[in-house]
Protein backbone atom coordinates (compact mmCIF):
# COMPACT_ATOMS: atom_id res chain seq x y z
CA UNK A 1 0.00 0.00 0.00
CA UNK A 2 1.44 3.42 -0.90
CA UNK A 3 1.98 6.08 1.71
CA UNK A 4 -0.72 8.45 0.38
CA UNK A 5 -3.37 5.72 0.58
CA UNK A 6 -2.20 4.71 4.08
CA UNK A 7 -2.45 8.31 5.24
CA UNK A 8 -5.86 8.62 3.68
CA UNK A 9 -7.10 5.40 5.35
CA UNK A 10 -5.70 6.48 8.68
CA UNK A 11 -7.33 9.93 8.33
CA UNK A 12 -10.70 8.42 7.41
CA UNK A 13 -10.49 5.97 10.37
CA UNK A 14 -9.79 8.89 12.71
CA UNK A 15 -12.68 10.83 11.23
CA UNK A 16 -14.99 7.81 11.64
CA UNK A 17 -14.01 7.38 15.31
CA UNK A 18 -14.49 11.08 15.98
CA UNK A 19 -17.97 10.90 14.39
CA UNK A 20 -18.75 7.96 16.71
CA UNK A 21 -17.57 9.99 19.70
CA UNK A 22 -19.80 12.88 18.73
CA UNK A 23 -22.78 10.52 18.76
CA UNK A 24 -23.24 10.46 14.97
CA UNK A 25 -26.06 7.92 14.48
CA UNK A 26 -25.24 7.07 10.86
CA UNK A 27 -21.62 6.30 11.77
CA UNK A 28 -22.81 4.11 14.65
CA UNK A 29 -25.29 2.35 12.38
CA UNK A 30 -22.48 1.64 9.89
CA UNK A 31 -20.37 0.19 12.70
CA UNK A 32 -23.22 -2.04 13.89
CA UNK A 33 -23.95 -3.21 10.33
CA UNK A 34 -20.27 -4.05 9.78
CA UNK A 35 -19.79 -6.07 12.96
CA UNK A 36 -23.22 -7.42 13.97
CA UNK A 37 -22.87 -10.78 12.18
CA UNK A 38 -19.27 -11.24 13.32
CA UNK A 39 -20.13 -10.55 16.96
CA UNK A 40 -23.22 -12.80 16.86
CA UNK A 41 -21.27 -15.69 15.32
CA UNK A 42 -18.37 -15.27 17.76
CA UNK A 43 -20.94 -15.52 20.57
CA UNK A 44 -22.50 -18.60 18.98
CA UNK A 45 -19.15 -20.35 18.58
CA UNK A 46 -18.14 -19.70 22.17
CA UNK A 47 -21.53 -20.23 23.82
CA UNK A 48 -23.40 -22.59 21.47
CA UNK A 49 -26.69 -21.00 22.38
CA UNK A 50 -28.65 -18.44 20.32
CA UNK A 51 -30.21 -16.67 23.27
CA UNK A 52 -26.81 -16.18 24.95
CA UNK A 53 -25.24 -15.09 21.64
CA UNK A 54 -27.99 -12.46 21.31
CA UNK A 55 -27.25 -11.20 24.84
CA UNK A 56 -23.55 -10.92 23.92
CA UNK A 57 -24.49 -9.02 20.75
CA UNK A 58 -26.62 -6.48 22.65
CA UNK A 59 -24.17 -6.09 25.53
CA UNK A 60 -21.27 -5.57 23.10
CA UNK A 61 -22.83 -2.67 21.21
CA UNK A 62 -24.25 -1.05 24.36
CA UNK A 63 -20.71 -1.11 25.74
CA UNK A 64 -19.32 0.32 22.50
CA UNK A 65 -21.63 3.34 22.95
CA UNK A 66 -20.70 3.64 26.60
CA UNK A 67 -16.93 3.23 26.16
CA UNK A 68 -16.16 4.83 22.80
CA UNK A 69 -14.38 7.69 24.59
CA UNK A 70 -11.89 5.23 26.07
CA UNK A 71 -11.08 3.67 22.66
CA UNK A 72 -7.44 4.38 21.77
CA UNK A 73 -7.18 5.40 18.14
CA UNK A 74 -3.92 3.58 17.52
CA UNK A 75 -5.78 0.28 18.04
CA UNK A 76 -8.01 -1.36 15.48
CA UNK A 77 -11.69 -0.79 16.17
CA UNK A 78 -12.52 -4.35 15.05
CA UNK A 79 -10.08 -5.84 17.58
CA UNK A 80 -11.53 -3.55 20.24
CA UNK A 81 -15.07 -4.77 19.47
CA UNK A 82 -13.85 -8.40 19.55
CA UNK A 83 -12.34 -7.70 22.97
CA UNK A 84 -15.63 -6.39 24.31
CA UNK A 85 -17.55 -9.29 22.75
CA UNK A 86 -15.09 -11.91 24.06
CA UNK A 87 -15.31 -10.49 27.58
CA UNK A 88 -19.10 -10.47 27.36
CA UNK A 89 -19.03 -14.12 26.22
CA UNK A 90 -16.65 -15.07 29.08
CA UNK A 91 -18.98 -13.37 31.59
CA UNK A 92 -21.90 -15.28 30.12
CA UNK A 93 -20.01 -18.59 30.37
CA UNK A 94 -19.24 -17.90 34.03
CA UNK A 95 -22.83 -16.94 34.74
CA UNK A 96 -24.02 -20.14 33.07
CA UNK A 97 -21.60 -22.30 35.02
CA UNK A 98 -22.60 -20.62 38.27
CA UNK A 99 -26.22 -21.38 37.49
CA UNK A 100 -25.36 -24.99 36.78
CA UNK A 101 -23.10 -25.15 39.83
CA UNK A 102 -19.99 -26.29 37.96
CA UNK A 103 -17.54 -24.50 40.21
CA UNK A 104 -14.69 -26.81 39.26
CA UNK A 105 -14.92 -25.65 35.66
CA UNK A 106 -13.90 -22.14 36.64
CA UNK A 107 -10.37 -23.27 37.36
CA UNK A 108 -7.96 -24.12 34.60
CA UNK A 109 -7.15 -27.78 34.57
CA UNK A 110 -3.48 -28.68 34.57
CA UNK A 111 -3.43 -31.54 32.14
CA UNK A 112 0.27 -31.78 31.40
CA UNK A 113 0.06 -35.47 32.10
CA UNK A 114 -2.93 -36.13 29.88
CA UNK A 115 -2.29 -39.19 27.77
CA UNK A 116 -3.54 -38.93 24.23
CA UNK A 117 -5.92 -41.71 23.25
CA UNK A 118 -4.53 -43.77 20.47
CA UNK A 119 -6.86 -45.12 17.82
CA UNK A 120 -6.62 -48.83 17.21
CA UNK A 121 -5.30 -49.46 13.68
CA UNK A 122 -8.25 -51.65 12.71
CA UNK A 123 -10.94 -49.51 14.39
CA UNK A 124 -13.09 -47.11 12.39
CA UNK A 125 -11.69 -43.58 12.70
CA UNK A 126 -14.36 -41.58 14.58
CA UNK A 127 -13.13 -38.31 13.10
CA UNK A 128 -13.73 -39.60 9.58
CA UNK A 129 -17.16 -40.88 10.59
CA UNK A 130 -18.03 -37.58 12.24
CA UNK A 131 -17.10 -35.70 9.09
CA UNK A 132 -19.62 -37.82 7.22
CA UNK A 133 -22.58 -37.13 9.46
CA UNK A 134 -24.20 -34.68 11.84
CA UNK A 135 -21.53 -34.04 14.42
CA UNK A 136 -22.91 -30.94 16.11
CA UNK A 137 -24.13 -32.71 19.22
CA UNK A 138 -20.80 -34.45 19.84
CA UNK A 139 -18.84 -31.27 19.18
CA UNK A 140 -21.09 -29.27 21.49
CA UNK A 141 -20.55 -31.76 24.30
CA UNK A 142 -16.80 -31.71 23.68
CA UNK A 143 -16.53 -27.91 23.72
CA UNK A 144 -18.64 -27.80 26.87
CA UNK A 145 -16.00 -29.89 28.64
CA UNK A 146 -13.26 -27.30 27.96
CA UNK A 147 -12.36 -24.71 30.61
CA UNK A 148 -13.63 -21.26 29.54
CA UNK A 149 -10.30 -19.68 28.65
CA UNK A 150 -9.21 -22.70 26.52
CA UNK A 151 -12.50 -22.55 24.67
CA UNK A 152 -12.09 -18.84 23.95
CA UNK A 153 -8.44 -19.12 22.83
CA UNK A 154 -9.32 -22.06 20.56
CA UNK A 155 -12.24 -20.20 18.94
CA UNK A 156 -10.27 -16.97 18.43
CA UNK A 157 -7.15 -18.65 17.05
CA UNK A 158 -8.25 -21.80 15.23
CA UNK A 159 -11.77 -20.87 14.20
CA UNK A 160 -11.78 -17.07 13.81
CA UNK A 161 -8.16 -17.12 12.59
CA UNK A 162 -7.15 -14.02 14.55
CA UNK A 163 -3.43 -13.31 14.83
CA UNK A 164 -1.59 -14.05 18.07
CA UNK A 165 -1.02 -10.27 18.46
CA UNK A 166 -4.75 -9.60 18.23
CA UNK A 167 -5.56 -12.35 20.75
CA UNK A 168 -2.89 -10.98 23.08
CA UNK A 169 -4.65 -7.59 22.94
CA UNK A 170 -8.11 -9.11 23.37
CA UNK A 171 -7.29 -11.37 26.32
CA UNK A 172 -4.31 -9.58 27.83
CA UNK A 173 -2.17 -12.72 27.59
CA UNK A 174 1.42 -13.20 26.40
CA UNK A 175 2.07 -15.13 23.17
CA UNK A 176 3.52 -17.96 25.24
CA UNK A 177 0.39 -18.14 27.40
CA UNK A 178 -1.80 -18.16 24.29
CA UNK A 179 0.12 -21.04 22.71
CA UNK A 180 0.16 -23.05 25.90
CA UNK A 181 -3.64 -22.69 26.24
CA UNK A 182 -4.15 -23.41 22.56
CA UNK A 183 -2.06 -26.57 22.80
CA UNK A 184 -4.09 -27.82 25.75
CA UNK A 185 -7.37 -26.77 24.18
CA UNK A 186 -6.68 -28.69 20.96
CA UNK A 187 -5.58 -31.78 22.83
CA UNK A 188 -8.43 -31.67 25.33
CA UNK A 189 -10.99 -31.02 22.62
CA UNK A 190 -9.73 -33.97 20.63
CA UNK A 191 -9.95 -36.19 23.72
CA UNK A 192 -13.43 -34.88 24.50
CA UNK A 193 -14.60 -35.53 20.93
CA UNK A 194 -13.29 -39.08 21.23
CA UNK A 195 -14.94 -39.58 24.64
CA UNK A 196 -18.28 -38.20 23.47
CA UNK A 197 -18.08 -40.32 20.33
CA UNK A 198 -17.21 -43.41 22.34
CA UNK A 199 -20.12 -42.81 24.66
CA UNK A 200 -22.46 -42.38 21.73
CA UNK A 201 -21.13 -44.98 19.35
CA UNK A 202 -19.08 -47.33 21.48
CA UNK A 203 -15.98 -46.87 19.33
CA UNK A 204 -13.07 -49.16 20.08
CA UNK A 205 -9.83 -47.58 21.22
CA UNK A 206 -7.01 -48.02 23.64
CA UNK A 207 -4.69 -45.71 25.55
CA UNK A 208 -1.15 -44.86 24.48
CA UNK A 209 1.34 -46.16 27.00
Amino acid at each position, binding site marked *: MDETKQNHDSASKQEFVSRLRQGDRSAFRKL*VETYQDKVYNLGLKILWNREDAEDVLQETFLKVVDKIDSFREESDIGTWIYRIATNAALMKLRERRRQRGHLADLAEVDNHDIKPTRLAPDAPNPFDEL*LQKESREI*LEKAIDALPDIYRVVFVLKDIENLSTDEIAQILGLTHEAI*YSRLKRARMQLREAVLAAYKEKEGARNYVMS
Partner: protein
Amino acid sequence: MSCHEMLEKICADLKEDIDSEVCQEVKRHLESCPDCRAYVDSLKKTVYLYRKIPDEKLPDEVQERLYKTLKLKV
Protein backbone atom coordinates in the same frame (compact mmCIF):
# COMPACT_ATOMS: atom_id res chain seq x y z
CA MET B 1 12.90 -37.36 20.98
CA SER B 2 10.20 -39.53 22.57
CA CYS B 3 6.69 -39.85 21.14
CA HIS B 4 5.27 -37.79 23.98
CA GLU B 5 7.77 -34.95 23.54
CA MET B 6 7.16 -35.05 19.82
CA LEU B 7 3.43 -34.66 20.33
CA GLU B 8 4.05 -31.69 22.63
CA LYS B 9 6.11 -30.05 19.91
CA ILE B 10 3.51 -30.72 17.24
CA CYS B 11 0.76 -29.23 19.36
CA ALA B 12 2.75 -26.11 20.17
CA ASP B 13 4.19 -25.57 16.73
CA LEU B 14 1.53 -26.57 14.24
CA LYS B 15 1.96 -23.17 12.61
CA GLU B 16 5.75 -23.15 12.66
CA ASP B 17 7.70 -22.38 9.49
CA ILE B 18 7.98 -25.63 7.54
CA ASP B 19 11.74 -25.17 6.99
CA SER B 20 12.61 -24.84 10.67
CA GLU B 21 14.79 -27.52 12.18
CA VAL B 22 12.10 -28.61 14.63
CA CYS B 23 9.55 -28.87 11.86
CA GLN B 24 11.90 -30.97 9.76
CA GLU B 25 12.46 -33.30 12.69
CA VAL B 26 8.73 -33.53 13.29
CA LYS B 27 8.24 -34.29 9.62
CA ARG B 28 10.88 -37.03 9.61
CA HIS B 29 9.37 -38.59 12.72
CA LEU B 30 5.86 -38.44 11.28
CA GLU B 31 6.98 -40.23 8.15
CA SER B 32 8.19 -43.15 10.21
CA CYS B 33 5.58 -43.21 13.01
CA PRO B 34 1.99 -44.18 12.14
CA ASP B 35 0.80 -43.48 15.72
CA CYS B 36 1.91 -39.85 15.66
CA ARG B 37 0.58 -39.47 12.13
CA ALA B 38 -2.85 -40.67 13.26
CA TYR B 39 -2.69 -38.32 16.23
CA VAL B 40 -1.85 -35.22 14.17
CA ASP B 41 -4.49 -36.21 11.64
CA SER B 42 -7.16 -36.40 14.35
CA LEU B 43 -6.10 -33.01 15.81
CA LYS B 44 -6.42 -31.41 12.39
CA LYS B 45 -9.81 -33.05 11.92
CA THR B 46 -11.00 -31.76 15.30
CA VAL B 47 -10.31 -28.21 14.13
CA TYR B 48 -11.84 -28.98 10.75
CA LEU B 49 -15.02 -30.37 12.35
CA TYR B 50 -15.47 -27.13 14.26
CA ARG B 51 -14.77 -24.99 11.22
CA LYS B 52 -17.37 -26.93 9.23
CA ILE B 53 -20.14 -25.35 11.28
CA PRO B 54 -21.33 -22.55 9.01
CA ASP B 55 -21.69 -18.93 10.12
CA GLU B 56 -25.30 -17.94 10.68
CA LYS B 57 -26.88 -14.85 9.22
CA LEU B 58 -28.23 -12.68 12.02
CA PRO B 59 -31.93 -13.63 12.28
CA ASP B 60 -34.28 -10.72 11.40
CA GLU B 61 -35.97 -10.75 14.81
CA VAL B 62 -32.58 -10.64 16.60
CA GLN B 63 -31.56 -7.68 14.46
CA GLU B 64 -34.88 -5.95 15.20
CA ARG B 65 -34.40 -6.37 18.95
CA LEU B 66 -30.78 -5.16 18.69
CA TYR B 67 -31.74 -2.04 16.77
CA LYS B 68 -34.59 -1.35 19.19
CA THR B 69 -32.18 -1.62 22.16
CA LEU B 70 -29.68 0.67 20.41
CA LYS B 71 -32.45 3.04 19.30
CA LEU B 72 -31.55 2.60 15.62
CA LYS B 73 -34.15 2.51 12.84
CA VAL B 74 -34.55 -0.97 11.28
